């Protein structure tokens, strides 16, 4: 599965990073960087789902 970011909608709240710090992080300018867009293991998919779940503005989703 692939983590997809709607960048214009992302406001940098950073809750996704708290949920899945191994998959994504906010850089020094507060821009979200998806470090690992492709998730295959059950553990990573669960983390990605948690990140999608907490995004307050629905800017993240999982594809595939």
């Amino acid at each position, binding site marked *: 599965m692939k983590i997809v970011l709607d960048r*214009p*909608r992302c*406001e*940098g*709240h*950073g*809750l996704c990073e*708290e*949920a899945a710090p191994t998959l994504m992080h*906010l850089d020094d*300018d*507060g*821009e979200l960087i998806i470090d690992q867009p492709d998730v295959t293991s059950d553990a990573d998919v669960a983390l990605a789902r948690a990140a999608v*779940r*907490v995004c*307050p*503005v*629905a800017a993240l989703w999982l594809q595939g």
Partner: protein
Amino acid sequence: MTATSTAAPTSNVDLWSDEILSDPYPTYAALREQASVVYVPANDLYAVTRYEPIREALADWETFSSVKVAFNDDMNAALSHTSLASDPPKHTPMRAALMENLSPRSLRPLKDDIDAKADALVASLLDRPDVDLAKEIAKAFPISIVCDLIGVTGHVKENMLRWGEAAFNVLGPMNQRTIENFPIAGELFGWVMGVKASDLTPGSMGRGVFDAADRGMIPHEAAAGIIHQYIAAGLDTTIAEIGNALHLFGTHPDQYAKLRSNPELIPNAFNEVLRYYSAVHVWGRLVTKDVDIDGVTIPAGSQAGFIFAAGNRDPRHYDNPEAFDITRNASDHLSFGYGVHGCAGQGLARLEAHAVLAALVKHVREYSVGEPVMTPSNTTRSIGSLPLTRLVKA
């Protein structure tokens, strides 16, 4: 609409009666257990009561339009030029303009100052008799932060509490509270429309916004609109939630001890406070086409009311929802809404609340509170007074 969908069951409550607003949770639980959607004739409203339907409806801005977020027509008309009460694509650039000063990345430089102010405020109360935590922290702290951000002092600052409360009371149906608060909300509007850059403290965010207007970079009304949202949207809600946090930890010593022994729990603890006591009880939408929720039809043209406070305690989504438990994962609570209209000020609210909780656990080993005195509001859960009855310093 599916073949099996039926008319909504009804309830004879008035969701904005004094009795319900002072103690809404028993009524919200009854509505939630009655059905996912309950028609409330007294308020001509389709109440959406369960967690998943509320969350899905918040994500679906095309079916659930924000042109009716308030529960009276006058206020929806007054809000029609704001991001709060408009839909994409009109909403998109207004939201972006508002977020320029409110996104976590723009707020980051304020963190140290907000933390220091919270620390000083809590420290100043430790040896004082007769402390009222609602008045002296929950109300005083957000007012001082927002006034410093905007750059106001004196009589304007003294009016902030009234103005902020009024701005949320006027979102209710046209009841006595709404009618009485319209002139006060009007005072706030009159002040922001008349204020000039030179009225505001040099170096403040508010001064910067009006300087940009004076240079012709943004229209004056846009500058006024941004300042209006800080006061109208950002005060009463944050006050409510800091008051709720102080109340909950003052009545749950086991949870406070957990927080003290593990301050990294503060962000999650604040999520749990937001889940347990939603700052905003009910929020409106206009239903643009017939929509089926769990077999019940909401007809096009009617108003839906999302009862966040009911959804946040839905046992279908949260285990043991009536327990206040700061170790549960409550990060997907409904209290900031969700989707394109997700609370624009949530980053600032978090900064303020986290700062207060961090100062509390640093300076206070144990504390207790007396019965809170509730102030019924048409929108927020408002603690008017919360006496501190016992405090052991750290």
